[in-house]
């Protein structure tokens, strides 16, 4: 499997090695170093805004505080961005949900029969290799330039991690456990329900996290292309850019970033809530 981001089986080794031999305890609280980096970035930002750009070109990189005073603190603009973010979130979540259902079903189908795997897996890989952007205009052609097309872009972009992770999770079932089920005459459906699916859950959640991030990307990209209907963040971004509304553009970009972070964090939380109790994750 090519793009499995989820690394299993290392738990045992990492657990025994990392835990007791904890690295030298530093006296600096862990939030300090990132804070220093943030300060440095802001400093460079101001430097560029005020020193390297003259007044007429300052719109290329407005100083950080102007993004707040010129956009985020302006109620109308904030409302626009908020509403657009909400629409984008909905598109991304619907797309993600469909990708999860389709991806898990696809992987389960492949796991149940060798011939299904050999006939379907290549297409999962091809789907991953196709630059989805190249297909986007075609999607508009077929499905119209509105809401459904945006969702379809999300699905296509978010599908592969779900397929590959679920399949991997199912196939990584311990052979001993498989034999135990076989020994006691478990039907295929029982094996799937009581063994393979629960075993795949951590990998499925890992896939969801990746797919969630991709779905946000898909929703924004879909917005760029499918402008009919109510504008999402992508449409807003591209409007602000066209009208050289620099502060607003930056504010919208910040909103898009926050959206990505929030969705990623939410799925991380969900994963920990569902499988965190029993699954010994290798990443902390």
């Amino acid at each position, binding site marked *: 499997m090519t793009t499995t981001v989820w690394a299993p089986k290392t738990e045992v080794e990492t657990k025994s090695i990392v835990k007791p031999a904890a690295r030298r305890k530093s006296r600096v609280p862990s939030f300090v170093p990132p804070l220093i980096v943030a300060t440095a970035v802001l400093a460079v930002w101001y430097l560029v805004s005020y020193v390297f750009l003259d007044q007429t070109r300052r719109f290329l990189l407005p100083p950080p505080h102007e993004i707040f005073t010129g956009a985020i603190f302006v109620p109308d603009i904030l409302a626009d961005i908020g509403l657009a973010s909400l629409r984008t979130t909905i598109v991304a979540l619907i797309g993600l949900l469909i990708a999860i259902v389709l991806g898990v079903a696809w992987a389960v189908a492949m796991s149940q029969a060798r011939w299904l795997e050999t006939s379907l897996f290549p297409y999962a890989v091809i789907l991953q290799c196709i630059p989805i952007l190249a297909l986007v205009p075609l999607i508009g052609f077929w499905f119209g330039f509105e809401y459904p097309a945006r969702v379809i872009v999300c699905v296509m972009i978010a599908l592969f991690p779900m397929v590959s992770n679920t399949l991997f999770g199912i196939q990584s079932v311990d052979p001993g*456990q498989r034999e135990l*089920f*076989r*020994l*006691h005459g478990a039907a295929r459906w029982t094996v799937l329900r*009581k063994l393979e699916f629960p075993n795949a*859950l951590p990998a499925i959640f890992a896939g969801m996290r990746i797919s969630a991030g991709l779905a946000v990307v898909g929703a924004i990209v879909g917005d760029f292309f499918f402008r009919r209907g109510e504008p999402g963040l992508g449409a807003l971004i591209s409007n602000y850019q066209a009208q050289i509304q620099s502060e607003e553009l930056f504010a919208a970009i910040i909103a898009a970033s926050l959206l990505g972070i929030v969705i990623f964090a939410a799925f991380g939380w969900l994963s920990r809530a569902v499988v965190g109790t029993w699954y010994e994750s290798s990443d902390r």
Partner: protein
Amino acid sequence: MPVQTAEPLIAATTAPTIVGFSSVEMKYPDGTIALSGVDLDIAPGEFVSVVGPSGCGKSTLLRLASGLEHASSGEVDVATDRIGYVFQDATLLPWRSVERNVELLAELHGVPSAERKAKAKAAIGLTDLTGFEKHLPKQLSGGMKMRTSLARALTLDPELFLFDEPFGALDEITRERLNDELIRLFAERRFAGLFITHSVSEAVYLSTRVVVMSGRPGGIVAEFEVPFPMPRDPEIRYSAEFAALTGEVHHALRKGYSA
């Protein structure tokens, strides 16, 4: 070497066998012969250990007895379908608590919930796991995991118990404790046991009979009746008779190597 057993082993002539191997050969598609000419009968109430060098096909015996694999030639007769199989690994489901893991087999066999829970509770009591019902496998030590695995197999009231080096990965102290518990269980339940191990002293300590296998292709080269009464006194391990018998088994094992 055959010594009279002190225990009520049913006389060999009239004994029904619970599992019987007759001239069993096991050949894999790649041409390796794992077993050849194996004859072994186990009667109800017997606990037979098999020792032999690695790769001699000991585990294959269990796979044949359980029906996971089928012999290339010869016959394997098993007179019961209540078989408990304890693997080398505990093979617990990490998302299930001890209790739910122990219930698994009964669940797979469609035992109704109330009965299943009662059986699980009894098995947990028997294996000294009371108080750990809600623990997850990752919270258990290796020995506790093995106990859970044992408890899980016990819920089916097996008439035949197959053990594939179940204590091989444990430290010696835990291993000896589990040996004693297994002896106690055996004395109470009187299932027939087929126990694969690398450890000669474990084999002698646990069994009513020890079978020695030769290297590949695996065949039986010697058998020893173990005369000590059941349940075994842990102190027996340090007796001269025990040492003499383990010595004999070791000797046969070495001869099997060179054969």
